[in-house]
């Protein structure tokens, strides 16, 4: 009985901490502007990104050489995106305000993936420039 109570309390806290942690990562990434190259490459126009773009952006991120330090954050955001998808399927469309919130969160996840792609492209360019310097 006590173990079940501890489980319920811990699991509730886990969900709250996890959602807040992911939102803090997403909010921090919102402050970064995307470069022109990344916008051209991904076809993103304007300030926001559609949530449906997330999977495509993650696939593009996977194609870039890993920066080595954002894999954990990307994994957390992917879990968060899946969680949002589950809520959406379970009836998130029933209320307009919940539906709008879900879409805005999914858009933030996609923007995070775009920022991660942007970082990796910049890293690849730097790597290539260094290699060119080494050869010359």
């Amino acid at each position, binding site marked *: 009985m006590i*173990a*079940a109570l*501890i*489980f319920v*309390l*811990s*699991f509730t*806290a*886990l969900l*709250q*901490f*996890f959602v*807040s*942690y992911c*939102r*803090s*990562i997403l*909010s*921090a990434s*919102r402050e970064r502007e995307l470069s022109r190259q990344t916008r051209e490459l991904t076809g993103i126009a304007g300030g926001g990104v559609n949530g449906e773009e997330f999977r495509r952006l993650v696939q593009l991120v996977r194609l870039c050489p890993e920066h080595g*330090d*954002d*894999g*954990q*954050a990307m994994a*957390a955001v992917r879990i968060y995106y899946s969680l949002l998808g589950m809520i959406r399927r379970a009836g998130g469309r029933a209320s307009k305000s919940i539906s709008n*919130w879900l879409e*805005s969160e999914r858009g*933030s996840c996609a923007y995070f993936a775009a920022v991660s792609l942007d970082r990796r492209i910049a890293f690849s360019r730097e790597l290539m420039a260094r290699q060119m310097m080494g050869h010359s």
Partner: protein
Amino acid sequence: MCILRAGSARRYLSLVFYMLAEFLTTAGRLWVFLRSGYSSHEYFYFYYYSDALLVICLYFALIGLYSQVFEEMQVSRYLRVAAVLLLGLTAWFTYGVVADSRDRLLTHFVVELSQNLYFVGVVLTYLLWGAMMKLRETRTRLIQLVLSLGVCVSAFAATYALRNIYPSFSLWQYTPPLLAIGLPLAWGYTFLKVSEDARLATARVVAPNHR
């Protein structure tokens, strides 16, 4: 290494100490694992005894974060005293729970203490997060450090609780070592990617309509 690279070792000394303990423990566990095997008694004892030490280090890392949040109030001395008292109280409560078991009393005590301390960790992290929201804490780095710690301790506490409910299910044996990797990775990301000067309103993290 990430904390050292970010130049924050002195500021977050308790976190450095925990990371060092985590590294040494993992290395020790690997050594015992290679020498004696996963299902050996040596690995069992080493795992649980080192886990108890590690959770005590994690507890003091959490108190270090409390000191950071309340640094302007100059209450670190009182926090340390309260932390030691709470640790003693948890140990005393744990002893009360396991005192009836006649064989392997110390091992029972160590395993039970880890579980109780993880739950105390969940409660303390929750209180800290509540205080941060009340005080309108804006330091992004501190926010992310506390939240990732919250995810880690609550995941540990939930796993231990599930193991008590379903003791024969073997998945619970493999979950804690995997969870233990998550916290250093999350802290590493925070120290490398989030500068000390970065600011973020806690309301943006909590309230659904803030962006």
